[in-house]
């Protein structure tokens, strides 16, 4: 900062349309909490927003090391946005490790606010710095503001009797206060939140004091050239809440139970990044939700299947490794033809891979990952809020067609959040299906029987007769069943018929889902983007930007990835080029190439991060060259 900068009189904030802020610190520094608070206040202020939390797989990696850095990025804007932003315009680095880990994300000439107290020789060494970057020329390309956050927090809280070591734990609130001042966020909601969140009196007052001190520091210091405000976005009118994908998914399951008039049974084994769905659902017992933390992934899906046989909406939640373990039971569910929801919050693989990072490489295992011919529907949520609708849709299909359904989410939308226009509960669909109560087959001699595999001629779904129903006692199992009667049957013709019927049932769902619709330059696009899942956000931003620059771009986004909408091939063939951005090595691209014989090109990324809009802009331009 130069001392020639004139301090603006009265410091009226400058209005900007959007800003991307990134908080980075040690895992123990409370960066997720800080980011969450900034997000909540901005949401309540009326901004549109999108978040990207990033944290290490270790609970507490060695303090002060690059491996232990935890970050939270949020974009807030006065207009409709879908991504957490490519490059932050401001980075708050609480220690040298955070600076080292995240500096390359900061945009050129971006604002860098560092906690200068943390740049001691020891901390610099732990982060692997040979010399202090604050003292050399390495940060010349950025606007650096050094704030001794630790000592300022200690000084502010000292009169309260807070010990220096304890005060250090409040420094994230100092940072939050400072950034709240910088972007003109109201302070009352955060102070109110602090007063209810922290039970310990000293911790509560220490955090509140640190927050206020940070805000006041911004007000009085001359280190900042400007103060900014991002005005509320012109979102469609209505009531909004800020929601993460995992919470939306859990609420969607609760809603599905209500709409199906069925109790929910969740069998789940803890796994990152899906555990929050188990946590959230276990709170809502008064909705008739039973949750069992099973002994393993296999038991979790087994319990859900047992509950489905009993007449509940059976659900299991997991991530990639768990999907692999559940594969055999999923095949059994295909054979039993019972409704079952398997939720896969994808993360980087293979194996343990990148547990806390995002990827969308489970498409193949979702569609194909079973033994034998075992087709099932697969649905992919595209944004945090969309997880709510996706859960209801997955349940609708599972119940109507008596089939396991895999619902794909991923770490990015599971932990990311966005404002959600609350739906009118009364307008949500009725997805209830009747249980069988009567015999369904009459023999030649006039006697009646219950045939568990006598199908509905339209949906090919079999009757769902639950224990407790008089006269309909029947046995199901993994052995091949006789078409109709359901008895064990090993004959060649019957097996062919049953395999064909199970395939036809799933294929037929294609006519019960929305058709593929292109948006953008529908009639004259030079390139069409085919997207699925959470790439939605980056594609949306990239399509807007490239079209503003005059490029002719169309976009089709899939939520039903198996079976595909029947008109998809026809839609894609209208365009001279098709590109398929995916956070894998081209799994959907291969499917559309095989299905429709079109020369689709994969655009791939497997770095544990979502696409940036910029990357997809480049991909669109590249396709047109």
């Amino acid at each position, binding site marked *: 900062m130069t001392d020639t900068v004139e301090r603006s009189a009265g410091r009226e904030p400058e209005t900007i349309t959007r800003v991307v802020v990134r908080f980075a610190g040690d895992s123990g520094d409370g960066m997720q909490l800080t980011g969450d608070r900034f997000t909540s206040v901005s949401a309540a202020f009326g901004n549109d927003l999108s978040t990207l939390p990033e944290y290490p797989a270790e609970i507490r990696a060695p303090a002060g090391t690059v491996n232990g850095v935890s970050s939270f990025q949020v974009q807030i804007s006065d207009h409709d946005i879908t991504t957490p932003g490519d490059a932050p315009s401001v980075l708050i680095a609480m220690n040298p490790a955070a600076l080292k880990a995240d500096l390359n994300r900061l945009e050129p000439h971006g604002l860098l606010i560092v906690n200068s107290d943390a740049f001691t020789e020891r901390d610099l060494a732990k982060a692997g710095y040979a010399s202090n970057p604050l003292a050399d020329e390495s940060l010349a390309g950025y606007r650096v503001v050094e704030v001794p956050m630790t000592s300022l927090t200690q000084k502010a809280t000292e009169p309260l009797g807070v010990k220096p070591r304890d005060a250090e734990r409040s420094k994230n609130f100092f940072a939050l206060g400072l950034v709240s001042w910088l972007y003109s966020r109201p302070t009352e909601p955060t102070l109110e939140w602090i007063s209810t969140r922290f039970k310990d009196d000293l911790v509560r007052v220490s955090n509140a004091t640190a927050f206020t001190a940070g805000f006041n520091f911004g007000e009085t210091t001359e280190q900042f050239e400007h103060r900014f405000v991002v005005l509320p976005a012109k979102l469609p009118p209505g009531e*909004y*809440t800020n929601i993460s994908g995992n919470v939306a998914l859990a609420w969607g399951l609760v809603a599905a139970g209500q709409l199906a008039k069925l109790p929910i049974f969740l069998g789940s084994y803890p796994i990152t990044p899906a555990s929050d769905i188990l946590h959230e659902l276990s709170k*809502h017992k008064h*909705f008739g939700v039973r949750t069992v933390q099973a002994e393993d992934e296999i038991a979790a899906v087994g319990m859900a299947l047992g509950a489905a*046989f009993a007449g509940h909406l059976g659900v299991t939640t997991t991530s990639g490794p768990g999907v692999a373990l559940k594969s055999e039971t999923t095949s059994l569910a295909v054979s039993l033809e019972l409704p079952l929801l398997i939720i896969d919050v994808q993360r980087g693989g293979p194996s343990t891979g990148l547990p806390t990072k995002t990827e969308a490489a489970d498409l193949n295992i979702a569609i194909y990952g079973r033994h034998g011919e075992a087709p099932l529907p697969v649905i992919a949520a595209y944004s945090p809020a969309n997880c709510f609708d996706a859960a209801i849709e997955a349940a609708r299909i599972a119940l109507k067609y008596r089939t396991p359904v895999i619902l794909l989410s991923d770490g990015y939308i599971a932990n990311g959040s966005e404002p959600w226009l609350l739906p009118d509960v009364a307008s949500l669909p009725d997805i209830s299906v009747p249980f069988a109560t009567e015999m369904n087959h009459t023999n030649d001699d006039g006697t009646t029987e219950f045939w568990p595999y006598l199908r509905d001629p339209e949906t090919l779904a079999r009757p769902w007769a639950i224990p407790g129903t008089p006269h309909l006692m029947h046995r199901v199992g993994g052995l091949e069943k006789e078409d109709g009667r359901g008895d064990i049957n090993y004959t060649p013709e019957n097996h062919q018929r049953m395999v064909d019927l199970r395939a036809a049932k799933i294929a037929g769902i294609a006519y019960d889902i929305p058709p593929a619709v292109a948006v953008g330059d529908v009639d004259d696009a030079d390139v069409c983007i085919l997207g699925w899942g959470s790439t939605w956000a980056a594609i949306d931003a990239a399509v807007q930007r490239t079209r503003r620059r005059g490029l002719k771009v169309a976009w089709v986004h899939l939520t039903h990835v198996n079976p595909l909408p029947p008109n998809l091939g026809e839609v894609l063939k209208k365009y001279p080029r098709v590109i398929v951005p995916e956070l894998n090595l081209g799994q959907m691209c291969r499917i559309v190439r095989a299905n429709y014989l079109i020369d689709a090109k994969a655009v791939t990324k497997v770095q544990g991060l979502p696409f940036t809009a910029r990357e997809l802009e480049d991909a669109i331009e590249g396709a047109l060259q």
Partner: protein
Amino acid sequence: MSDTIVPVTTKKDWTSDQEVRWCPGCGDYGILLAVQQLMPELGIAPENTVFISGIGCSSRFPYYMNTYGMHGIHGRAPAIATGLAVARPDLDVWVITGDGDGLSIGGNHLIHALRRNVNLTILLFNNRIYGLTKGQYSPTSEIGKVTKSTPFGSVDPPFNPLSVALGAEASFVARTHDLDRKHMMDIFRQAHAHRGSSFVEIFQNCNVFNDGAFDDVTSRQVREEMMIDLRDGQPIRFGAGGHKGVVMGTDGQLRIVEVADVGEDAILVHDAHRDDPGLAFALARLSHDDHSATTFGVFRDVDRPDYGMAVGRQLAETSSKKGPGDLATLLRSNGTWAVV
């Protein structure tokens, strides 16, 4: 589903129309008959009864019962049955498994079902062999067993199924055998009456791949001198006229003695309701092979909370505290703002 009317059924009501496909002479027939004969005595209805099984010869059992049933996948029956029993505590849920299904591939599910005390009646058919895959050694086969997969004899030490169950905190643990229908029915009746997990090991003869495995203990000729039938509240005596008995030595070891040598008062009195499973454990392991006197009957029968009921109670308590769930309220629970 009514509590007041006791259903009147006959064995025929519990027998399905499916042809039984076990090998002629298999011990499974005797067990099936015992269960089908017992069911009318239990005063329950076929439509409220579910049999869940895994994979193996014994796991074909549900097909032969005219109840609701599921032939599941290998080892997973306790997990599937847990979901069923927790979802529907009103049902009578039986699990049929074997030594391979329950103790090898499904060991984890079995011990956790027992630990949770899910309301299940678990019948484990122990024939000490893999039958359906045509004769490999099982986790209960003795060391030295020569099978297709162990041509030089097995070097795997076996499980004692009752030790596993007791170690997993099972609240009801019993043993019977396939040659004595009356004994089986008595044990199954008690197992069914017990609320929570009931675990019953059944010595079951596989006459094709492991014929006569239990003959030295259970055959009619030797039974009187080789079977120690535990009776709750009774001194543990066996043999002609009860001339033999079980005592606990000052070293804590259980020993088989001649009653005449020690006097009647020295004989251990069986108490299946002891909270401490230590004695049940020792009794279950009194014999270390199938050629010496072996304990049968109910080893342990104690009250522990039924898992499914406990889960249901939390639902009821939460509902009475918060009222029935309201979706519109839930969606607003993290705070909202209005855009006009």
